[in-house]
């Protein structure tokens, strides 16, 4: 039965036959059936990476297999979402080693996109913390892979967008915490120069990211707020917090009830939002201890916030540029500012070094921006792609819905190796998405 599905950006939308499985044997049957499909978790990538005519959802394959509380080792099936993991591990004094800005993603998705978090410059991406995982290949065989066993399969599965096979089991290391609170600092930066200086100054902090106002011009060009933090120690909590030092943060309270008409978001409203957001911090520096929820997942508090971009949806554009290419970053920001295509959520972060085949992070600056889908957007993004490539950068496939294959091929030096590994384990394109076809990663 076909249903309409879309990922978080609500662009593109398509009809798909969504299949579920609870047991491995059922997945094996799906693997042996003739229709090609793409594995799909909670649909929180932004574009078309987990869209296809047939999708196989992992959401019913979501069981915890083991949790070693002494060693901090966690093992689960691929459809388990991070929010469920936090509910179990936080009260026992453990945290996710790496988490993206939403907890509503599956572990399988975390591996398939090889997600990064605010701690990338210290802890790397999610795949750095995997001990081993099971992947079911297109022929139904189940292989256990790790950096030592079937390293080619392991490397191509981390960040490989589900094209090597279906991840069924993942075992990974957790991070020890004394409390579930975060000691955070917010620092106002007057302009881009100032912001980059602050990143440098505060790079010893485990967690860091910045919100940036991409519409500000002149002396205020690139102004923003740097947010850094550390897991709080017991002694840093106030009396009330200290009563429940390992509290699981609350459930979301607000739901965005409908799609906002697309005209609501325009240069003026974004400008006002940015003015208020920047202005809300009166002091240049704020320091406080907050629960992990607002620090790591500020937007999870509003369910369906993506509806704010209207029913045409939006595209999230995330690129990374090498540290030496600050000039490229400036050029792109100026281009966006000139075009008046401001985004409510423009997030800047500095990535640390990373050695991987197809994962997105590489050492440098990464900027993520939301653009509502409208006429003229795609040619504009093509133009940005050219700048990104010119300065040695690349785009994040999990956010992508529109890049041209040459942009991917030029940005990822090991792409041919990746393609040959996909070909080896998934020779007929049994696992494929509309993205993998567009980017020439599957098929001929």
């Amino acid at each position, binding site marked *: 039965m076909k249903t309409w599905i879309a990922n978080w950006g609500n662009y593109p939308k398509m009809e798909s036959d969504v299949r579920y499985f609870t047991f491995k*044997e059922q997945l094996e049957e799906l693997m042996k059936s003739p229709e090609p499909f793409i594995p799909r978790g909670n649909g929180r990538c932004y574009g078309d990476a987990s869209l296809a005519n047939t999708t196989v959802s992992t959401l019913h394959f979501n069981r915890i297999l*083991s949790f070693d509380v002494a060693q901090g080792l966690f093992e689960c099936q691929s459809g388990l979402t991070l929010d469920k993991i936090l509910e179990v591990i936080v009260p026992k004094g453990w945290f996710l080693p790496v988490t993206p800005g939403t907890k509503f993603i599956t572990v399988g998705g975390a591996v398939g996109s090889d997600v990064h978090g605010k701690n990338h410059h210290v802890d790397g991406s999610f795949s750095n913390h995997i001990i081993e995982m099971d992947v079911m290949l297109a022929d139904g065989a189940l292989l256990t892979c790790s950096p030592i066993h079937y390293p080619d399969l392991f490397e191509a599965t981390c960040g490989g967008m589900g094209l090597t096979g279906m991840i069924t089991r993942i075992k990974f290391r957790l991070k020890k915490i004394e409390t579930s609170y975060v000691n955070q600092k917010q620092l106002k930066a007057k302009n881009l120069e100032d912001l980059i200086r602050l990143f440098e100054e505060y790079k010893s902090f485990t967690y860091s990211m910045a919100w940036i106002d991409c519409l500000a011009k002149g002396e205020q060009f690139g102004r923003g707020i740097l947010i850094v933090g550390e897991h709080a120690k017991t002694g840093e909590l106030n009396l009330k917090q200290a009563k429940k030092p390992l509290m699981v943060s609350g459930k979301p309270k607000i739901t965005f009830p409908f799609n906002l008409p697309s005209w609501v978001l325009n240069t003026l409203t974004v400008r006002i939002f940015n003015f208020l957001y920047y202005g809300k911090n009166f002091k240049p520096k704020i320091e406080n201890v907050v629960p992990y929820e607002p620090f790591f997942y500020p937007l999870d508090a509003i369910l369906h916030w993506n509806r704010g971009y209207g029913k045409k949806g939006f595209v999230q554009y995330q690129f990374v540029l090498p540290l030496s290419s600050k000039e490229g970053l400036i050029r792109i920001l100026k281009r966006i500012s000139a075009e008046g295509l401001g985004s409510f959520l423009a997030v800047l972060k500095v990535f640390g070094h990373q050695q991987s085949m197809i994962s997105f992070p590489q050492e440098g600056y990464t900027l993520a921006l939301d653009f509502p889908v409208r006429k003229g957007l795609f040619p504009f993004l093509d133009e940005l792609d050219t700048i990104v490539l010119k300065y040695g950068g690349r785009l994040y496939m999990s956010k992508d819905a529109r890049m041209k294959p040459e942009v991917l091929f030029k940005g990822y030096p090991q792409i041919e190796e990746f393609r040959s590994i996909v070909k080896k384990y998934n020779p007929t394109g049994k696992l494929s998405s509309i993205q993998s076809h567009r980017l020439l990663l599957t098929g001929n």
Partner: protein
Amino acid sequence: MPTVLILGASSDMAIAISEKFASEKYNIQLAARNSKRLEAFQSDLAIKYDSKVSLHEFNALQFDTHPGFFEQLYVKPDVTVCVFGYLGDNEKGINDWAETQKIIHTNFTGAVSILNIAAAYYRTQQAGVIAGISSVAGERGRQSNFLYGSAKAGFTAYLSGLRNYLFRYKVHVVSVQPGFVYTKMTEQLSLPPLLTATPQQVADIVYNAVIKKKNVVYVKWFWRYIMLIIKLIPEFMFKKMKL
């Protein structure tokens, strides 16, 4: 901690019911064919809810193994929930006695066989709750699924009689009448969203009915009235309808 026995523990509905009871601090006995494949589910419940979860091999169609099955339960359950069922293929069943038998024996004979044993035990204990998941399909036979429906009709009547019989022994029996439920059994059907329950909704209703000792519960509640109307249609009209 009290214990609940889930008969037919592999289905989506059974999994949701087990999880609900575990979250309410019950130990769980999962009984199913090929119970080894429930290991992931066993570890999951044990880790999430700190409950004791055990796996038991059980086949509804092997009636002669039922006494031994109940006998070997080291801890006897306080609550027994009978979830297993088989929709089957009505059209196939009409021409295939094996299919018909499977439908009748899974939904009716097998359920009666194991619940008689549980009932006898609870009677001697003067305590206990039995919950049976029947179906609204058992309230009036329809051309599309009357083999399943008639077996469920038998099961519904059995539960009602058993409730009456066990009342004076302080044992309670709940009849659960789900309408449409989103499960693997119905995955390829296009069901009306308003009338269709999730397995979690069924689980919440089963748990509440057990705790509050309700007699007959519907999921969702308006199915009671839908079925009332369907039962009121005169037979001379009903036989011409395509339901």
